[in-house]
């Protein structure tokens, strides 16, 4: 890691530190304070978008561990989110458990389902495994659509708001303080996980699974672990989504949504914690922008019809994903690194 001139790392701990200079500490703490004070001064609409971004970020960080660090494509992230969301809502409505119990239960159940669909990794690898997650996506979606016994079905399921000490957390501000700490925590965990023994094993598996196996890494169990963590994050995101949107519909958890999550990762930069944050903010923001601009577009060109919003956001999204892969496969995270490198040296060229 490059450091500004004059910052010397005279111990291993210092060399490994994520935050190494006083300025970085200042920016981090200041940024976090600003982030957690933001509900006080930004309007509700923006706050709800930020909440959605934070929920999505949790799912994306999970996907980042599986796809970015372990190198396995998951086409079922949205389905695993659904598992978490529905489990949490069923536990809450049937057994009357509080949200603080159902959230980890939802995450855990999604994690276990993820392991189940990761099992073929014992025999196959690479894109064969992507097929298994594709199957997961279709099977879970089908189960949601066709089992009214679970309270599922094509219609929306109402989810009650979480409570904290007798206070119902219904407003966007309240939910912000539930969601945002978890999103920050998820990012922090991901950043640190990949620096541990487990994370290094993930990266070795991604870079060359044969070599990793020869080095004594149990590739199968690490892949399963990656599947578990990935779906655990997805499940938590799903449970949060249910509590935030107060309703769950199978239509939110389609294959398209899973592909969109992969796209967010691509845009941000695969295998980069900061990239996942950039990608989420960029893509969710873009989606909201298109949704906001579409009525204006329809008023300019009414012959396009009402269905145009959905098509435009799909086109924009597909185009962005394709163009990023084509021209900047390392994503926004790479641009950010370039910016940091030039900023560090500024005003000198090198």
């Amino acid at each position, binding site marked *: 890691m490059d450091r500004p001139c004059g910052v010397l790392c005279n111990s291993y701990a210092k060399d490994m530190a994520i935050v190494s200079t006083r300025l970085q500490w200042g920016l981090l703490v200041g940024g976090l304070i600003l982030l957690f004070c933001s509900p006080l001064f930004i309007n509700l609409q923006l706050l709800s978008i930020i909440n959605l971004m934070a929920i999505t970020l949790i799912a994306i960080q999970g996907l980042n561990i599986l796809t970015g660090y372990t190198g396995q494509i998951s086409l079922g992230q949205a389905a695993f989110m659904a598992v978490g969301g529905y489990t949490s809502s069923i536990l809450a409505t049937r057994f009357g458990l509080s949200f603080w119990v159902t959230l980890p239960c939802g995450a855990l159940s999604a994690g276990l389902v993820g392991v189940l669909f990761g099992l073929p990794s014992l025999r196959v690898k690479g894109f064969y495994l992507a097929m298994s997650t594709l199957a997961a996506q279709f099977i879970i979606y089908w189960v949601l659509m066709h089992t009214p016994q679970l309270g599922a079905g094509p219609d929306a399921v109402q989810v009650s708001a979480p409570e904290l000490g007798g206070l119902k957390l219904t407003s966007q501000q309240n939910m912000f303080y539930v969601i945002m700490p978890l999103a920050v925590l998820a990012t922090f965990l991901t950043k640190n996980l990949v620096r541990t023994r487990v994370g290094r094993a993930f990266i070795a598996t991604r870079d060359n699974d044969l070599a990793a196996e020869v080095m004594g890494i149990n590739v199968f169990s690490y892949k399963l672990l990656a599947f578990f963590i990935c779906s655990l994050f997805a499940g938590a995101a799903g449970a949060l989504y249910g509590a935030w949107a107060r309703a769950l519909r199978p239509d939110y958890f389609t294959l398209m949504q899973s592909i969109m999550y992969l796209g967010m990762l691509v845009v941000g930069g695969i295998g980069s914690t900061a990239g996942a944050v950039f990608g989420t903010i960029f893509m969710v923001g873009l989606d909201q922008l298109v949704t906001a601009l579409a009525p204006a577009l329809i008023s300019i060109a009414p012959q396009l019809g009402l269905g145009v919003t959905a098509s435009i956001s799909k*086109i924009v999204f597909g185009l962005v994903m394709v163009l990023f892969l*084509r021209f900047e496969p390392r994503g926004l995270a790479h641009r950010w690194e370039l910016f940091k490198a030039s900023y560090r040296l500024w005003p000198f060229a090198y």
Partner: protein
Amino acid sequence: MSEFISLVVNGILIGGVYALVGLAIVVIYKSSSVFNFAVGDFVMWGGFVMWTFLVAFDLPIWASILFAVVVMAIIGLLTNRLLISPMAGQPLLAVVLLTLGLSYLLKGVHSAAWGPTWKAFPPLLPSGKLTLGSISFSADYMWCFIIAMVAFGIFSYLFQRTRMGLAMRATAEDHQLARSTGISVKTIFSATWILAALLCLVAGVLLGSVNNLGPQLADIGLKGFPVVLFGGLESVVGCIVGGIVVGVLENLGAAYLNPLVGGGIEEVVPFVVMLLVLMFKPYGLFGLKRIERL
């Protein structure tokens, strides 16, 4: 019993069309080891392009077929030239993600151009029920199967008997060696993408005329993946076997399991089959066993 046999026969007949979709995946995978996740959208586009010429422009059938072939060939060619070829040297993960992005893009353009509504083909194939002894099956399914098998035959002829097919097989074996014998690998890649797009066109038109033509065709097209995994990713024969097995299981599932679970099982049976195949016979019936060396 006769009901069972009719179900199997109908399954085999529709399986022929799935085999075509599978073939479209296999052709590309064999030559460039790229999984084309946009195959479902190619199928959907195939159906809708044909519908546009036939119904919206009201052209005679031979002209619509001609135009549809040209349009789909151009789409296949452009996909390869603009998106896939420039990705040479990038990790395969990136190329596969690219096809996913392409799938999104095709879905978006499709819904902008044709809208989310269902369309209907004019009856292209003779409908009605045929009976053979106690077995009954629908005539349009039979014609589907026949057309699919003709397409399959044409493909096999191209692949096995022509110089182009020889070059394709050589490219599938080894890019370096193929290039050193003077084969233009770039041209071969384009040819495989065009071929895959045309196979998707046939599949799209057939699936669109037995069911209806709608956005769901993209998901039906994804059933090509269970087909190729069952048959083995490198195998052309495997496609037919896989297609038929998937078609039959889907039909049997729809008949015997739907009353138990309340409908719609045919959407998910192929994927359950795929999961089982992945767990127990991962390289399919005719696929190459991966032998790994350091």
